[in-house]
């Protein structure tokens, strides 16, 4: 949590990891190349010295090997300089460079027939670790080939490599720092539209602006468009809410006026007459409240994209409720709703529509209620509710869907149930119609938009 969730941290951490890995790999390859190169130069130089040694070698008057002139590199003359030569076998007091001082190159026993170059590791004076290059040469006036060798201190090679590696590591570290700094700047610039978006949202929230308008990069533009759509939707909902509240207040005021008049006229003699009138007004007020509540709920949900409700869940929950609420009549509710059918709208609205229809069916049924649901062409689905109650004659079916109509005052209920169902269904672009049921009672068919699974 916290800083690991920061976008800036993620981008920077990613960049740092890659920079480090890439530079480490590069450093390793470069160091290896350099070492190989230095080694080759070192070997070439030794070979060169050996060549020179062979060139200046001659036989003196006593028939012993001698140098016609000293070798050019001054290190051969400086004691323990790390560069040495030797002529002859180690055991037989060989001719050797002044730099070897009083020690002898301890050459391994090596008889070579082909006269090629040989390379050895050998211990040198002052604990030096030497690389030795040797060959056999045949001097004029001698029958036996003589062994000549040059040697150099390995430490020199290591020193050069170490110095190079230090410089390389420092340079790569500086490069890494520069790359990460560049990434930091890039992230900073790249994320700037997000801060701008936040500033704009703050401005919208405090009321300075109605919409986000700054030109945003293509990646963020859909987000801005969605936010603007959401803002528009919120505005519309609030507007509709105001209108609904106004309508409701107006409707209730009329009833309240009647109630106030009746209450004013209330006295002992007419109490019997006034009582039912007042009850009737209260009932009407309740209907208005129910109606506007249902409309307000549905209106708020409409237009939010991407919501869906599984019909089967909703029907199962409502059937549970109905079995309790209508336990006294013991009505049997048969549900046939395939799983996977989705209504493109809010759960509350589907509950409201199906709840009212199912409640009606259970209220009137003699013993059986059926609920089925099918997908239909054109992205719709239909829920069919059947009961085996008395049903409705054809001409009163349309009237049953009008607000405020209650066809039988003897049954409890507000009479608005069906009107609310139709209102909500139409808000979603669907509808409800009533028909005769094969079970003998009323059939209600609710058509609603389906959501893609």
């Amino acid at each position: 949590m916290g800083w690991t969730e920061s976008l800036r941290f993620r981008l920077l951490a990613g960049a740092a990891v890659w920079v480090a890995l890439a530079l480490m790999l590069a450093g390793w390859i470069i160091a290896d190349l350099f070492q190989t190169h230095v080694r080759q130069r070192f070997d070439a130089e030794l070979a060169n010295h050996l060549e020179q040694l062979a060139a200046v070698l001659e036989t003196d008057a006593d028939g012993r090997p001698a140098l016609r002139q000293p070798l050019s590199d001054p290190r051969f003359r400086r004691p323990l300089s790390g560069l040495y030569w030797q002529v002859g076998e180690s055991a037989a007091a060989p001719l050797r460079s002044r730099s070897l001082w009083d020690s002898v190159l301890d050459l391994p026993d090596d008889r070579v027939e082909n006269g090629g170059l040989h390379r050895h590791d050998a211990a040198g004076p002052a604990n030096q670790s030497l690389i030795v290059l040797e060959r056999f040469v045949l001097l004029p006036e001698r029958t036996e080939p003589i062994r000549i060798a040059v040697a150099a201190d390995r430490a020199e090679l290591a020193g050069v490599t170490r110095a190079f590696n230090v410089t390389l590591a420092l340079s790569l570290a500086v490069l890494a720092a520069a790359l990460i700094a560049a990434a930091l700047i890039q992230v900073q610039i790249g994320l700037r539209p997000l801060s701008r978006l936040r500033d704009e949202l703050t401005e919208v929230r405090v009321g300075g602006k109605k919409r986000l308008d700054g030109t945003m990069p293509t990646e963020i533009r859909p987000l801005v468009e969605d936010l603007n759509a959401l803002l528009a939707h919120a505005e519309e909902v609030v507007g509709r809410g105001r209108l609904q509240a106004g309508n409701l207040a107006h409707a209730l005021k009329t009833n309240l006026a009647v109630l106030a008049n009746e209450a004013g006229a209330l006295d002992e003699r007419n109490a019997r007459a006034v009582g039912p009138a007042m009850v009737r007004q209260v009932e009407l007020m309740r209907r208005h409240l129910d109606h506007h509540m249902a409309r307000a709920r549905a209106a708020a949900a409409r237009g939010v994209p991407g919501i869906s409700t599984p019909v089967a869940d909703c029907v199962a929950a409502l059937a549970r409720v109905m079995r309790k609420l209508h336990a006294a009549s013991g009505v049997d509710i048969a549900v046939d709703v395939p799983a996977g059918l989705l209504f493109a709208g809010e759960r509350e609205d589907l509950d409201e529509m199906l709840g009212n229809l199912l409640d009606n069916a259970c209220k009137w049924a003699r013993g059986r209620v059926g609920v089925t649901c099918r997908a239909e062409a054109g992205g719709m689905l239909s829920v069919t509710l059947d009961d085996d109650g008395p049903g409705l004659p054809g001409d009163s079916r349309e009237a049953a869907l009008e607000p405020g109509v209650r066809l039988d005052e003897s049954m409890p209920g507000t009479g608005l149930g069906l009107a609310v169902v139709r209102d909500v269904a139409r808000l979603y672009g669907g509808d409800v119609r009533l028909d005769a049921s094969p079970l003998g009672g009323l059939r209600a068919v609710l058509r609603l938009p389906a959501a893609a699974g």
Partner: protein
Amino acid sequence: MRVLVVEDTAELARQLKQRLEGEGYAVDTAADGEEGRFLGETEPYDAVILDLGLPKIDGLTVLRSWRRAGMAVPVLILTARDAWNEKVQGIDAGADDYLAKPFSMEELLARIRALIRRAKGHASAEIACGPVVLDTRTGRVTVDGQPVELTAFEYRVLSYLMHRKGQVVSRTELTEHVYAQDFDRDSNTIEVFVGRLRRKLGVDVIRTVRGLGYRADEP
């Protein structure tokens, strides 16, 4: 029959208590969820009327904790929250019935009667015990079709015994279901009520089970 009303609107609680007592119930009221939950857990009620929007603990939480504790008392939710998804929540929390405000008092009474009857295993609104018939809808008692006038307490005693027809009801149990909590109880008065009931009914439907209590049975 003893009923608990958990309702925070004092005026409505008073109306409910008055009306229910008029129908022959012993009524306790609680004005918040905490008190309601406590009463429900400690007193043996025959039915509970429960509001949802309560101070301290909301009604659904109270109901769920009762059901978790294994309490089977029938509960009717009485609330202004009347959306269907709220009813689903209420029923799923363990309610046996759901009535939305504003409601008609007659419907509430009918539903409470039905809840108690079903909880005690009676399918019909009339409970008969030999020639004695108790109509739970009207609160009328007849013997061989002839109406018998009973006081409120006599009716409560007879109603409870007949709801539990065939089962032995101890004197303590009977006292608990006949008196409200704040009533000064005296189990001796139960004997007085039973004696008067026997005289008024004139048939032997209330048996004394020695050392255990009473049992309503066919004569």
